């Protein structure tokens, strides 16, 4: 017995050693890919997540204040030392021209802060003697308003939930509670639901159009099938921009479709086919169709014709055989295709931006807007995070069911 167990341990060790070597080899092979993924994929996403809550720049611009304000209870005005600290900070920040940045950041939380800081900054040179508190309040009443100090305290923390809250139309109120923003300012929830709605519609449209195509391809002769495949993949070989622009040419007021309809006398006025929701649907459905057809096609190819034949021989009409036997077996393909189209549609930017009107823009448009025009990376990141959460939760809910890991393309 002792001998056997000894041998057993030896064998186990050998096995583990052998497997460890194998694991290292495998790891070595995928190391380059892992590295690329890490650097170009996970790191940017992590940075985006971080950006959406990062607030450390404020403490760098106003270091003394951030120290001094920690003693403030939150009730009533802060003490003289805090006023002194903010004066000192503003003096330096004004000279280094970082004060405006802090102002913009605080203004985001409380409108009026930007002008307050700049106005005070301009005069800060003149204030040399205490009492600073009274002097500042005399300079601008707002310095005596507790709300401004609440925002200041919140604004000096290292992290903030403000952007993420703003991305779903929430904000902090004067008492530091999370509340809904006033109705006329609430836009993001409606943009997010519009994004979801458009994506869902596109998914359904691609399914309705793609299913018969995939079915035909899966059952066609090899030559027809190859031809169709090329036509389908042609979409991938032309740039997204070109495809979108060509839709404008086709759909615009004096475009091909309108000209044809007018020429044939069906309409007398050109129809508005582009720069509205219709244009977005047409162009996005076209662009995303292959992502529905390919997984469907690959699933359908794998369904032997025997199933439908069996159903027929068992007494089912062809429509019954299709619905009860064929369709359920295509569900993994429908799921995979729908998920791919939906998730891609959620993040679409160029196409709606070009062929949509102002009311057809999706979340990504506002991400770009905040990056390019507002230079507000935090807000852009926060919107990005909502997209990420939306996609992630979808994946978690449906990904398991349609078994994305087993999905094949073509």
């Amino acid at each position: 017995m002792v001998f056997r167990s000894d041998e057993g341990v030896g064998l186990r060790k050998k096995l583990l050693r052998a497997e460890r070597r194998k694991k290292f080899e495998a790891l070595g092979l995928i190391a380059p890919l892992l590295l690329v993924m890490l650097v170009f994929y996970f790191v940017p996403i992590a940075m985006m997540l971080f950006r959406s809550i990062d607030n450390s720049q404020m403490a760098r611009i106003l270091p003394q204040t951030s120290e001094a304000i920690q003693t403030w209870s939150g009730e009533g005005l802060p003490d003289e030392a805090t006023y002194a600290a903010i004066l000192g900070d503003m003096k330096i920040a004004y000279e280094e021209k970082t004060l405006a940045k802090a102002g913009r950041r605080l203004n985001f939380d409380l409108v009026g802060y930007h002008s307050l800081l700049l106005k005070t900054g301009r005069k800060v040179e003149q204030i040399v003697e205490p009492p600073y508190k009274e002097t500042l309040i005399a300079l601008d009443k707002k310095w005596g308003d507790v709300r401004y100090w609440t925002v200041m305290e919140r604004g000096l923390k290292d992290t903030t939930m403000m952007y993420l809250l703003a991305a779903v139309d929430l904000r902090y109120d004067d008492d530091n509670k999370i509340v809904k923003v006033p109705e006329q300012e609430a836009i993001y929830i409606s943009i997010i639901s519009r994004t979801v709605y458009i994506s869902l519609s596109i998914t359904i449209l691609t399914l309705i159009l793609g299913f018969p195509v995939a079915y035909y391809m899966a059952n066609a002769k090899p030559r027809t099938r190859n031809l169709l495949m090329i036509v389908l993949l042609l979409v991938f070989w032309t740039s997204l921009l070109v495809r979108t622009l060509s839709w404008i040419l086709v759909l615009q007021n004096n475009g091909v479709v309108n000209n044809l309809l007018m020429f044939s006398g069906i309409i007398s006025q050109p129809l508005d086919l582009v720069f509205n929701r219709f244009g977005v649907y047409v162009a996005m459905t076209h662009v995303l169709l292959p992502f529905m057809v390919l997984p469907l096609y690959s699933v359908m190819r794998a369904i032997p014709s025997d199933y439908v034949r069996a159903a027929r021989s068992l007494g089912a009409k062809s429509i019954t055989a299709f619905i009860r036997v064929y369709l359920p077996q295509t569900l993994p393909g429908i799921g995979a295709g729908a998920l791919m189209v939906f998730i891609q549609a959620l993040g679409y930017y160029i196409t709606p931006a070009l062929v949509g009107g102002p009311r057809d823009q999706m979340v990504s448009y506002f991400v770009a807007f905040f990056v390019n025009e507002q230079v507000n990376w935090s807000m852009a990141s926060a919107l990005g995070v909502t997209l990420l959460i939306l996609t992630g939760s979808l994946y978690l809910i449906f990904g398991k069911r349609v078994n994305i890991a087993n999905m094949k393309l073509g």
Partner: protein
Amino acid sequence: MSNKDYHVRFKNVQKSYDGKTLVVKDLNLDIEKGKFVTMLGPSGSGKTTCLMMLAGFESTTHGEIVLNGKPINKIPPHKRGIGMVFQNYALFPHMSVAQNLAFPLEVRKFGKAEVEEMVKSALDMVQMGAFIDRYPGQLSGGQKQRIALSRALVFKPELVLMDEPLGALDKQLREQMQYEIKHIHEQLGVSVVYVTHDQAEALTMSDQIAVFNDGIIQQLASPADLYERPENSFIAQFIGENNQLEGVIEKTNKNIAQVKLKNGEKVSALMVDVKDKGEKTLLSIRPERVVINPKASKNSQALEGKVLELIYLGDHIRCRMMVAQNDQFIVKVPNSSFHAQLKEGESVKLSWDKNDCRALKP
């Protein structure tokens, strides 16, 4: 003969897939009610095609198939009442065993209680009652086979088609299933058209075997007739093992011909599809019908054979000989003390009953 005695008739049926070659050339086959008919033939000989035409999944290019006295192309597939067992089972993967079996009943609008009862009894028939809630993916090959069988029978069709249903099973299970299918057939009295390319399977199970080759039926006969009395050289070669000797007919006497073999020896043989003097012929003799060192008898004849190789097979010894310039002549010698002890290189006398030696067209 009235049509009614026949369940299915193929009348001069032809089939071409590509418009150039005929896969089925001229098929005439009558299947009696309640019979177990097997289509046997090498791969690509058109067996599945015939089954598919019967089931309604392929059209006939020419000719007619009659089911219960009615031309079949007037009846859509789902109304033919034909149960079918597919080679790969074709159990619906997204339905449980119970749902698979209930399917043909539900589309026929049976009541719920009735469905349940019929499903249960169909499963019990193949001893699979315990598996009612499993999915096809959770069954072994043999179990799937049984479910496929009971699904094809659950709605009580009068005709069941089976396309190589046991092809994927191992030898032991195959044999067991062969008996089970045979018993179920006897029990239910349905007509069965069974496709296989395993002749042992065909011989054990069938009432009648239709041997396919080259798009036509070479012979339609009972298993015993097929084995004992092959009607042409294809059947003789295809069914079981046969020794073949080339020769020329020297004279004929009623249905017995005297044939001169390549080495000049002369033997008598039963004429099957040859008739004229001077005609070339192929003699075919079963290895187990050859007797070594015979005592002379009236019907027998003696030939010279040289032992080339002996293979010990337990119950018999397989002996390869040189006979009339054919060095692949096989004789099966039963392993018993009554029989001769052979040695390689030895020359012996061989004989057989002249009715066992069939003269066929080469």
